[in-house]
């Protein structure tokens, strides 16, 4: 979606929010967005504002996530949950093909699924950064993943500015948020006082067209200022990461004893990689029926924390948890630059929250940067 200069903000009253859903549905989009489920705020198919987690927020800490009631009617008064948008563009599992062996040829017996047109509703700034990162993996390299590229191209990003940060957020340090600046079709800022409304801006031609169909009013300078103040609150983050020189520092510390230290805590469970909005590793599984003439291939999310991830004949390359954690962290924060020109981390904090033993990436980086005893 080519970015065009964002339009001036307009005002959409909160009780008119369903007009946005109606406009999206009328244009053939599948609306997906935040909703309550599995004891968390997750992304699922939604059809209107009543599906949103209105009046709920999340409380996050290393290894901890709790839903809490808010004392207001905020629709987007939470930060980020365990899901990320990658599940719609790079599905957790999907069939790549189904083939029949017929003489000297393969007959394709499945109907390749028609890529859906999604409207992603409630995308945060760090999540837009994550989408851009996965674009470079799947759509902008030597090879293009056709399903990803098509779905991404025809999907809409309806962004929401964060107006609060979780204790696990560090997007400011990673320079990805909290303010949505690019990569959106529409961007909303939810303002609760004195009246409940949304500032709404278009960032693309499709967004402009959509905005023109909504019952909006011009935005006053006061409301603009109120929105700025609200977003600024989300900049107050307790966690940070020193990124200057980090790429090189990690390369110098491939043999650091700290990897062993992390391995005494890390369960190698792969939760961090599943929750991470940029982790892109997958595996394939080939199956056949009893006749042996019909076969299919499935792709599934995989993780560098799984022992057989690195299996070649003779054994796994990374046998120990220390080596697997090192692979994950050095890839995310160091070799990602070599491969894709940016960090692989957007500072969303999911890996911290969803680690069952509360390993904190920012803390592990800090220890690597300022090792006790002056090792560097």
């Amino acid at each position, binding site marked *: 979606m080519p970015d065009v200069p964002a339009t001036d903000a307009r005002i959409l009253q909160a009780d008119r929010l369903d007009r946005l859903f109606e406009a999206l549905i009328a244009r053939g989009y599948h609306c997906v967005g935040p909703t309550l489920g599995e004891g968390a705020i997750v992304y699922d198919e939604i059809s209107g504002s009543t599906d949103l987690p209105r009046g709920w927020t999340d409380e996050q800490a290393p290894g901890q996530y709790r839903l809490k009631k808010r004392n207001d009617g905020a629709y987007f008064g939470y930060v980020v949950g365990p899901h990320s948008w990658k599940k719609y563009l790079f599905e957790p599992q999907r069939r790549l093909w189904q083939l029949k062996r017929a003489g*000297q040829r393969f007959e394709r017996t499945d109907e390749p699924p028609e890529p859906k047109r999604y409207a992603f509703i409630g995308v945060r700034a760090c999540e837009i950064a994550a989408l851009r990162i996965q674009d470079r993996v799947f759509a902008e390299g030597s090879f293009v993943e056709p399903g990803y590229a098509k779905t991404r191209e025809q999907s809409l990003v309806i962004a929401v500015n964060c107006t609060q940060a979780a204790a696990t957020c560090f997007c400011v340090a990673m320079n990805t948020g909290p303010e949505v600046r690019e990569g959106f079709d529409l961007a909303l800022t939810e303002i609760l006082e004195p009246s409940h409304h949304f500032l709404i801006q278009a960032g693309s031609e499709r967004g402009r067209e959509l905005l023109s169909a909504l019952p909006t009013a011009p935005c006053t300078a006061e409301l603009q200022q109120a929105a700025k103040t609200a977003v600024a609150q989300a900049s107050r983050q307790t966690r940070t990461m020193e990124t200057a020189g980090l790429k090189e520092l990690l390369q110098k510390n491939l043999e650091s004893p700290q990897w062993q230290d992390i391995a005494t805590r890390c369960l190698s469970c792969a939760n961090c990689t599943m929750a991470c909005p940029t982790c892109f590793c*997958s*595996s394939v599984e080939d199956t056949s029926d009893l006749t042996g003439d019909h076969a299919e291939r499935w792709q599934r999310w995989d993780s560098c924390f799984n022992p057989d991830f690195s299996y*070649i004949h003779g054994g796994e390359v990374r046998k120990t948890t220390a*080596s697997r954690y090192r*692979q994950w962290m050095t890839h995310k924060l160091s070799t990602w630059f070599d491969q894709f020109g940016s960090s692989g981390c957007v500072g969303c904090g999911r890996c911290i929250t969803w680690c069952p033993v509360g390993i904190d990436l920012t803390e592990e980086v800090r220890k690597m940067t300022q090792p006790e005893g002056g090792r560097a």
Partner: protein
Amino acid sequence: MESRHAEMVAAQPWLPQPWIVREVIRETADVVTLSLQPGEGAAAMSFGPGQFNMLYAFGVGEVPISISGDPADASRLIHTIRDVGLVSRALCGLQPGALVGVRGPFGSCWPVEAQAGQDVVVAAGGIGLAPLRPVLYHLARHRARYGNVVLLYGARKPDELLFGVELEAWRQAGIQVEVTVDHADAAWRGNVGVATTLIRHARFSPRNAAAFICGPEVMMRFTAAALEERGMAQERLFISMERNMKCAVGFCGHCQLGPEFICMDGPVFAWPRMRRLMAVREL
């Protein structure tokens, strides 16, 4: 032809193309060479020495296998496969006429033509001779273009030596062929010892030579170190790496080694790019 194949891979990078097994050559007890021809809807492919294909045993699975044929002969597509797992066993068991899925060719090439006028050292350990065979076919065919050419080849046992006919043909073509085994049997009259012990027999000028090395990682590390010691420049040593691969097109993430995707940046690398990474255990 070539571009049509590349287009098919680009449009549907996940979809194997049907190829037919034309000939099966049993090389040793656990190594088989398959000669393939395009099935219906597949296009012949040209490839560079060192490149690989993803070979799909129907319904069983897919593995990366280096092309071991002659790059000048596009009429046949040849892979040499060692039976080491479920998929490679299924591939080794294929009979003439069987359908096999092919995606590729993928990866980087041995920069052999760039060595014209220079000496060339080819060092192979075990099945590592297969990805180097395209280089040797090329060198034998264009022998006059190069200075001294030497093949140093080590296998574990005499009955595991590959490509006996070719070894003799390469000798006839003016390539110095030195062979060793780790464990001799009663009939063996040749060298005994690891591949690096052959370097002292090799006739080449270290300052005007390039080396192409393929074998187990430990063999490649020691061979590269020994050739450096003989005075060869690091950047003129090339090795070919192996890692788990599920896609070969940079999507699946499995084959990473440090910053490199072995599938796209490799499998052939200049030694300086691998030297530091290979020195780190479990990287």
